[in-house]
């Protein structure tokens, strides 16, 4: 194919001419025999400029275009569109940034001009070696696989399921509800019972667009946004090991959390005395409305211990303070003359109405005691003695009952699932979000989302909000009838050079590369590959090239720039 | 009859000065020649542009670290050089270059070819040897006397094509008794003659082919007979090849340094020739045992069929063989008989197409008749 290269220099108003002698640039470039035509324009990104460029491409029958203007961040897409409209392959286009990188950087006009020239020549040499890449489109499925039948999973399923969208909800245990299901039906800020979880479960069961798989596990997930395939294995005794394969467009992971094992730190004395109970056990007492000691008597004094496992795990679980307040309220409301002492490190009440909830507790006579750590918890007589440290002096208090609030930790099969779906974990062992700030429910695997405590400690409302967030993301990306456009600038592997050492598999962040045992070579799944190029760097025999960033293209570009 | 100039200088420094003046007067922009890398005797074939670097040049140093034809090919692979270059090559290297040009692997335009009547080169494992210099001076003595130096490589010892073909300028070295006082430059081509005035000497009327040369040629032909016989063990054909190549490690160094093996990836290094694990069982069943890595002999035979017809007997393959297989002797033996069949002389004529590329009706009619 003979290359007709056109170069267009944008003045960007006064921005570029101020520092760069554009006419000199145009003159010198015109002398190159690689290029067919060189022209300048006052403002290429303006409508009139785009029109001009389009006409030029058609008139000059250009096959390749270089535009010297602003940062690709600003207008690469703009000009690639123009090229496409003009019937050119948009990937035979190169934008050279002579504004931010030359005009705005270098005060001396001479230097700026010569740098701009180098850059543009580099761009010309790069574009010469561009391949005409083709955009692809893939059909999609809109159904969703939700892993985990806790409140987050249920809420996600409910907001996703619809007339033309099925949801497959997979729960490991034999019943829905998860941790939240185990809690008393009383939530902070209101004394009275509400049936939050039960209602949700009912709704889910009655929704004909939600297939519920209890006592089942996801054994395999492969594929990519719009085209996942998953294997679900049933563990129900009657159909032990029966597997079912389902297809889905997206996956929501809502595997929740486990609780810190209080026995890990003997200081809490958990398990040594029946009247030292965990918060979860206390929730049971509330459920059964029987707050009493093992000897059947009602406790006269209760200590609520916060932050068990915070130091050990290295993070604050955020919700304990609030539910301890809930306990305090409940105790005060139901056993009027009970003494309630809260032992806390820092009160973490980050929600707007939590503070008042705290103040009310104070009014009810709950005693709040700061501590740095629990030293010992042991039986003394028929009471329990809690020894704690507060700025370097130790103190004691003795009560009938001790309730300990354990930290939230990743649910035990988190790492296994992460392995299975090749999702990254964070330092604390929870799933890692794609971007902690701006993409809190997405993952590196496009089409796989995470919600609730699988991401780290959070309360029920936050979890439910995130479930809605995941459905927001999914509903806006998986629309019936719409197609997905996978990345075009992907990696490709030369089979005859690949030795199948699978080094690339171990460096691919997106799990886009797999190994073909029959051919003995690694294979890139172009639909998953994001073209980051890690594999290219890792391949010792140079069998992998990254389309649009080939060694040749980069080398020629750099060579020119350094000439 | 070619223009000849006698220069009253030691041949090495004479040629050195000649090239130096070409470089300084910018008649040429660079010289391809051997260059000393350090004081330990290491030399490399280099393109030199700066007169300063040229001080290290040793154009006639009797080593062949790379077949210069291969080097020039990689230099001109993408087209002719715009700027004029001079290159010092030995006759076999020149023949290799010509063969490569035929296969679009190089371009001779704008390259001033300087060669010599070649006394051969020393075996590479002598490079960096502690008494290297004395060996070299011994070598020059034998060149003067037109004798075969015992230190030269086997391939050189039986090489009868030691006079360059297609050289623009030829240095007459072999058989010149006063080589360290005077020597003659022959300017064989118009291109060569352009540069004759740079040679500070008196023009003489001489022929390069002297009696000494012819005697020298005879001696080598005799040796050739001898060496070819030696490789001929009592049991002929494949069996003998099996024994000869028995020590082969499969390092493929021979194909790596061979100027004619210009493939980027040799087929025998490619996946097509990986041993399929599945056939292990059956192979063992048949043979009871398997030499691994397998396929070494196949490699040599395959390589032979690919390049023997163009083999210029430069001897690089023998030189690099870590297990002393006389690869070059075998290949030039097979090569020369094959070339006879096609009556083709590799490296003689750039215009003459390589045999594989031509079809002659009467070719191998014998076989047909039988």
């Amino acid at each position, binding site marked *: 194919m003979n290359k007709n290269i056109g170069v267009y220099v944008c003045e960007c108003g006064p921005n570029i001419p101020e520092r760069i002698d554009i006419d000199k640039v145009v003159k010198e470039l015109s002398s190159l025999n690689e290029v067919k035509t060189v022209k300048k324009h006052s403002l290429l990104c303006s409508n009139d400029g785009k029109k001009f460029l389009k006409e030029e491409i058609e008139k000059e029958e250009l096959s390749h275009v270089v535009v010297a203007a602003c940062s690709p961040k600003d207008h690469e897409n703009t000009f690639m569109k123009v090229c496409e409209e003009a019937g050119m392959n948009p990937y035979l286009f190169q934008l050279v940034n002579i504004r931010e990188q030359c005009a705005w950087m270098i005060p001396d006009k001479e230097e700026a001009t010569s740098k701009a020239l180098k850059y543009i020549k580099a761009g010309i040499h790069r574009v010469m070696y561009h391949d005409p890449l083709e955009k692809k489109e893939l059909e999609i499925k809109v159904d969703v696989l939700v892993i985990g039948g806790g409140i987050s999973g249920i809420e996600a399923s409910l907001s996703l399921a619809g007339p033309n969208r099925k949801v497959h909800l997979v729960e490991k245990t034999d019943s829905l509800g998860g941790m939240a299901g185990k809690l008393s039906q009383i939530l902070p800020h209101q004394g009275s019972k*509400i049936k*939050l979880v039960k209602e949700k479960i009912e709704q889910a069961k009655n929704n004909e667009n939600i297939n519920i798989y209890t006592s089942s596990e996801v054994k395999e997930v492969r594929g990519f946004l719009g085209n996942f395939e998953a294997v679900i294995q049933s563990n129900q005794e009657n159909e032990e090991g029966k597997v079912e394969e389902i297809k889905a467009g997206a996956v929501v992971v809502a595997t929740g959390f486990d609780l810190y094992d209080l026995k890990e730190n003997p200081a809490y004395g958990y398990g040594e005395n029946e009247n030292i109970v965990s918060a979860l056990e206390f929730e049971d007492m509330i459920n059964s409305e029987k707050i009493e000691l093992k000897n059947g008597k009602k406790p006269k004094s209760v200590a609520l211990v916060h932050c068990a496992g915070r130091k050990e795990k*290295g993070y604050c679980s955020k919700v304990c303070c609030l539910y301890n307040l809930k306990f305090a309220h409940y105790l005060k409301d139901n056993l009027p003359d009970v003494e309630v002492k809260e032992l806390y490190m820092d009160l973490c009440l980050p929600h707007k109405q*939590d503070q008042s909830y705290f103040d009310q507790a104070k009014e009810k006579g709950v005693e709040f005691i700061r501590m740095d750590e629990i030293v010992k918890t042991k039986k003394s007589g028929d009471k329990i003695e809690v020894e704690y440290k507060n700025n370097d002096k130790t103190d004691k208090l003795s009560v009938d009952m001790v309730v300990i609030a354990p930290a939230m930790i990743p649910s035990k099969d988190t790492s296994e699932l992460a392995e299975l779906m090749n999702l990254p974990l964070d330092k*604390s062992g929870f799933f890692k979000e794609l971007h902690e*700030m701006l993409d809190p429910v997405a993952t590196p695997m496009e089409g796989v989302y995470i919600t609730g405590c699988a991401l780290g400690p959070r309360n029920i409302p936050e979890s439910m909000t995130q479930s*809605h*967030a995941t459905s927001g993301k999914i509903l806006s990306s998986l629309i019936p009838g719409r197609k997905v456009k996978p990345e075009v600038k992907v990696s490709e592997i030369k089979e005859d050079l690949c030795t199948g050492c699978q080094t690339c598999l171990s460096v691919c962040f997106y799990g886009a590369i797999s190994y073909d045992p029959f051919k003995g070579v690694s294979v890139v799944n172009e639909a998953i590959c994001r073209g980051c190029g890690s594999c290219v760097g890792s391949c010792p025999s140079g069998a992998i090239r990254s389309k649009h960033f080939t060694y040749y293209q980069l080398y020629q570009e750099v060579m020119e720039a350094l000439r | 009859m070619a223009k000849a100039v006698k220069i009253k200088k030691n041949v090495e420094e004479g040629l050195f000065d000649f090239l130096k003046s070409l470089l300084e007067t910018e008649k040429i922009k660079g010289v391809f020649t051997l260059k000393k890398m350090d004081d330990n005797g290491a030399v490399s074939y280099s393109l030199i542009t700066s007169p300063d670097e040229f001080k290290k040049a040793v154009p006639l140093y009797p080593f062949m670290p790379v077949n210069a034809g291969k080097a020039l090919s990689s230099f001109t692979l993408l087209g002719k050089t715009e700027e004029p270059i001079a290159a010092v090559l030995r006759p076999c290297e020149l023949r290799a270059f010509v063969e490569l040009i035929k296969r679009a692997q190089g371009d001779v335009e704008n390259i001033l070819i300087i060669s010599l009547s070649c006394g051969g080169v020393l075996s590479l494992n002598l490079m960096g040897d502690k008494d290297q210099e004395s060996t070299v001076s011994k070598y020059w003595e034998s060149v003067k006397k037109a004798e075969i130096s015992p230190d030269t490589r086997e391939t050189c010892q039986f090489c009868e094509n030691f006079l360059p073909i297609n050289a623009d300028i030829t240095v007459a070295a072999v058989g010149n008794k006063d080589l360290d006082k005077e020597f003659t430059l022959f300017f064989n081509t118009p291109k060569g003659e352009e540069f004759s005035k740079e040679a500070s000497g008196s023009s003489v009327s001489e022929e390069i082919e002297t009696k000494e040369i012819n005697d020298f040629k005879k001696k080598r032909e005799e040796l050739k007979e001898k060496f070819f016989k030696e490789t001929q063990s009592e049991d002929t054909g494949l069996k003998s090849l099996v024994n000869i190549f028995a020590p082969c490690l499969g390092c493929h160094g021979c194909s790596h340094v061979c100027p004619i093996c210009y493939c980027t990836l040799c087929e025998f290094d490619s996946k097509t020739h990986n041993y399929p694990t599945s056939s292990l069982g059956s192979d063992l069943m048949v043979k009871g045992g398997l030499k691994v890595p397998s396929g070494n002999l196949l490699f040599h035979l395959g390589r032979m069929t690919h390049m023997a017809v163009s083999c210029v007997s430069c001897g690089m393959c023998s030189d690099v063989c870590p297990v002393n297989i006389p690869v070059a002797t075998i290949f030039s033996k097979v090569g020369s008989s094959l070339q006879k069949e096609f009556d083709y002389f590799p490296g003689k004529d750039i215009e003459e197409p390589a045999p594989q590329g031509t079809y002659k009706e009467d070719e191998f009619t014998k076989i047909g008749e039988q």
Partner: protein
Amino acid sequence: MKNQNVLVIGSGVAGMEASLVLADAGLKVHLVEKDSLIGGQTIKFEEVYPNMECATCMLAPKQQEVLQHDNITLYLLSEVKKTEGSLGEFKVQIEKKARYVSLINCIGCGACYDPCPVSLDNEFEEGMSQKKAIYVACPGALPNAPAIDPENCVRLNGKKKDCNACEEACGFDAIDFTEKDETVNLDVGAIIVATGFDQFDVSSLPEFGYGKHPNVYTAMEFERLYAQNGPTSGKLTLREDKPIKSAGIIHCMGREEKGYCSGVCCMYSMKFAHFIKDKAPEAKIHEFHTDLCIPGKSHQKFYDGLKNKIEFTRYEDIEVKGKNGNLEISYTNNGKKNSIKPDMVILSPAMVPSAGTENLAKILGISQDSMGFFSTQDQNLSPIDSEKEGIFVIGCAEGPKDIPESVSQAEAAAGRVLSFLQ
């Protein structure tokens, strides 16, 4: 719900995210912003905890997306004046003030600033720098085009009718003095409120000497002070351009007054400490906190990393005094009185409802909670649904929260809207 248009009020990080998710889904989004630029409070931050990522770099791509998205109509310098109707059929009236600068023609070259004769305090920079009557809030503001402040432009306020300094300077006839304010009427199916927060006015607490002593800063002032695109271009100095040798950072400004913990101050206060340590490793930093509220899996680690570099003190009582420019923080820590003399004091104020909240609540016909934020149906069940079906409240308009939570709520709101539509 048939009407596939959605109104988003406020173009902060929450507003933008909600708009993008909905627009990607193919809905038409009308994004209303009262300011001349988009990005809200977040773009004022140089870095965000805990990864110290550059906030402007982090947001720029999102801003670009919003500006370039075919399904998003942006109304800048605009405010919602009237709404009626209910889920699926809201009628909305927007008042759009004139910018006097054409976004199509202007390329943001900035040629027009210098000629302008008027100069004013730049409130975007907390008044720490000057701007002209034709201005962009800060370098890198998006859309990258100035606006003219009609109150102060001598041409528009009639003081100097023939002034056309900017018009002359502009190479792209982008300036249009004839542009008029306009009212836009829209039919939308749902409304998402993302009007963000303001910071508690610390001058209402005289015992901290804000306003009295120059080197007592509010958090937002400090954010701008160290911002690369801020008034000092990131140079960290005291008002009188002296290097900082020591600083005291006081948490929980207005927690008691407001009656809630804002949940983010502890972290951003530590971010400040981290930042000062970065620029001036010798500087002594002292953090004064009550309860350390650092939830979130990576926050404690951030704190642990900082612990051994700076001083943390839990105060029961604290005040800032100042004698001829020298500051003193005196505090009590479990009963014991004590004090330090820092060069700089940074006050970390609570997040309070943004100024227009009350007014907007009336317009939307939804109520405010006791703290003045928009109230939502039920904290436990649907934290983003307002009392009125089809109106969602997200981000800090609903209450103090950090960026990830705001973004989650934004995506959640979009999710709710989209699942309505299913």
